[in-house]
């Protein structure tokens, strides 16, 4: 029992500590692929440090919502991080049905962010909030149809158990995993405001979705938001990598190795995807998200008809 908790705590520390590095790696690969030298891999850490030192200014029209929202954002994401397995270590929080908690704790973060954006009263932020809410509506089914379908197939309702039940040796599982990893990737792209749904590097306030909501934040508030967004990206990365653990083998070393190479491979995939594709029209984003949902449904159909 004691060792479980220790492993769980180490997992969280790894996630919290390495998430900016993950973002830095993606940016570096993107830079190299477009023929630039690019910012150092550790740039996200420097950025966070820089933002942390700056003065926090709140809009005069804002209420307490704007002040608590950044903190709620970080806390909820830390809780979500505590539910994910690193390697095959048991996460700190793991119980039957925790996929529901996982989905809605992220939903809570989004809810407060949207509230805070509207709280400031700028027309931009309201626009961003409206976009975020609309696209979240389409993104939510993706999670439940993909992770949910695996849960349905394996019969478990805890993230750890679901991943634990995956065996790469079983061919039919292999099909499900490939399908799921595609739709989770599409979900991650949308949730973490990456291309083609949102452009993390744009300075064009009218086209932003996620970034526009934090346009009026500064100092420690911006630090919290920025850090949460790095964590969020890494959380979705882990959600993706975890499909590929051959858990049945129960080798510590292999688990960690797959975690590291999986993360690195994912940064590469993200880097390539963001280099070679352009952002889609905003009105086409629901189509993109519905496509990912359809893939999840496909999973269920395959299972039902082959059983």
């Amino acid at each position, binding site marked *: 029992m004691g060792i479980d908790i220790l492993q769980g705590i180490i997992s969280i520390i790894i996630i919290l500590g390495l998430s900016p590095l993950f973002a830095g790696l993606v940016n570096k690969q993107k830079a190299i692929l*477009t023929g630039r030298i690019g910012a150092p891999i550790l740039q996200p850490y420097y950025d966070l440090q820089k933002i942390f030192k700056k003065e926090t200014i709140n809009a005069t029209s804002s209420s307490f919502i704007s002040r608590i929202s950044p903190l709620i954002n970080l806390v909820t994401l830390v809780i979500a991080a505590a539910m994910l397995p690193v390697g095959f270590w048991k996460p700190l929080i793991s119980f039957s049905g925790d996929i529901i908690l996982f989905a809605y704790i992220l939903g809570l973060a989004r809810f407060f962010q949207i509230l805070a954006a509207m709280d400031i009263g700028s027309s931009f932020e309201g626009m961003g909030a409206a976009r975020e809410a609309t696209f979240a509506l389409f993104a939510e089914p993706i999670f439940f149809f993909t992770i949910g379908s695996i849960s349905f197939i394996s019969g478990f309702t805890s993230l750890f158990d679901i991943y634990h039940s995956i065996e790469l040796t079983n061919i039919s599982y292999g099909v499900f995993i490939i399908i799921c990893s595609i739709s989770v990737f599409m979900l991650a792209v949308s949730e973490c405001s990456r291309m083609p749904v949102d452009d993390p590097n744009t*300075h064009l*306030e009218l*086209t932003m979705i996620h970034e526009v909501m934090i*346009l009026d934040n500064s100092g420690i508030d911006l630090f919290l938001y920025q850090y949460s967004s790095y964590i969020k990206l890494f959380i979705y990365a882990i959600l993706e990598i975890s499909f590929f653990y051959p858990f049945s083998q129960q080798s510590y070393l292999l688990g960690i190795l797959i975690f590291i190479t999986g993360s690195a491979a994912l940064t590469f995939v993200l880097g390539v995807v963001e280099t070679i594709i*352009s*952002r889609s*029209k905003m009105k086409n984003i629901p189509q993109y998200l519905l496509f990912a949902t359809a893939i999840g449904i496909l999973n269920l159909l395959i299972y039902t008809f082959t059983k």
Partner: protein
Amino acid sequence: MKWIDVQNNQSFDIESIVYLRKDDFSNTVSELLQTGSRMIALTPIDKNIPQKIIAVLSDSASSTIHIVGGDFSDGKFEFESWANKFPQTNYFECELSENYSYLPVNHPWLRPVRKQSVILKNKPYQFFKLEGEEVHEVAVGPIHAGVIEPGHFRFQCHGELIYNLEIILGYQHRAVEKLFLNANQNQRIILAESIAGDTTIGHTFAHCSALESLAQTQISLRADVIRTIAAEIERVAMHLSGLGGLSNDIGFALPSASYGRLRTLAINSLAAICGSRFGRGLFAYGGVQFDFTDEIIKMVINNLKTVQNDVQKINEYLFSSVGALSRFEETGIINNELANSIGLVGLAARSSGIEDDIRINFPYSAYRYNPISMINLSTGDVFARARARAMEIDEAFRFVFEQIENLPQGKIKTEMGNLNANSGVISIVEGWRGEIVHIASTDNSGNLTQYKIKDPSFNNWYGLSLTMRNTAISDFPLCNKSFDLSYSGHDL
């Protein structure tokens, strides 16, 4: 004859202008607009005699410029507005009204161009308002999230769709036209170079041509060719930058980075010629400041061949990408009819199927002997404006390589004499963005009494605003970039 006809860069005696009375003036201009002429200026020919104004209209078909004079000495500064029938004159009337207190009667929308306080008499500006539960207003700028020039944009939206976009400019107003009148010879070229930082060569070209005509100075063919080569290199560089910007706005990292790299090579060629990457210091009255040595020619050719080679590949990549095409095509459409009626110019006009290129319709300098082909596309969307850029780059390369290998011999600079007294000139140049007009006139001792500048942005900002109707607000930055208009060129 109710008006006089001149050619591009032809100096004329300002005494020869026929000044018509109020109604006659209005009708004559109306008549000319009806026959397909386009207004390019509306201003007093002498800044100190505001009661006598000229309307300058260009007729592309016959390559002539009509000058209609209006005399308002007796009575009020009022004339019947043309803007209801010919929306292209709208902004010119506003400008005249703002600067010389004229009142265009029945003007549909008299609004400030650069100085907020004049027309409004210090009352706050009333934005167009849309009311209702579901509509919302988004105000952007004048300070933006990126490092760009200041301008205020106000969108009236229904959800993500724009109903109306109102653009307020003037934050960069430096009174350039006034500065020209008080400047000495050495200062003037520097002033012309800084009218719009991205069209340094275009504006300086127009300025030098104008003053050389006033001084009856004939410049050597070699200088002419060097000028046009520089202008074409500027076009290449700015079009590359525009394509890079378009790619960047759709988040297309690969072309964006490549165009940026290639633009550097192009402007470095300008630096090789004159020491400034934007072409500052190249132009001088009577010719150019720097000659092309064999070494420079070799380097420029080398540089540009590399650019040409790489641009071809990256263009192919961009224009065959499904993602990019889905963003470009049918976004921000401005059809031929609308473009004609609001008097769109330059690249944007040619992308809407208007055959209007000063280098062809009003040939000047070396373009008189070495023609360039017209790039014309009909769809009028972002794609057309992007594609037109790519095609103009190809055409500019052809021109530059052809000219640089056959440079005429001769000296590069002739001494410019004093400006002729009582003369005027209209100098039109095709900058990379479009038609640049400089109008200069002198008094009886040969001093400048009026200097009027029209940047293509002056016409096209209104086009951008109309383009945005019924377009998604998230597509605004893309449409804006496809026009790529200048704030300082408009604000002067």
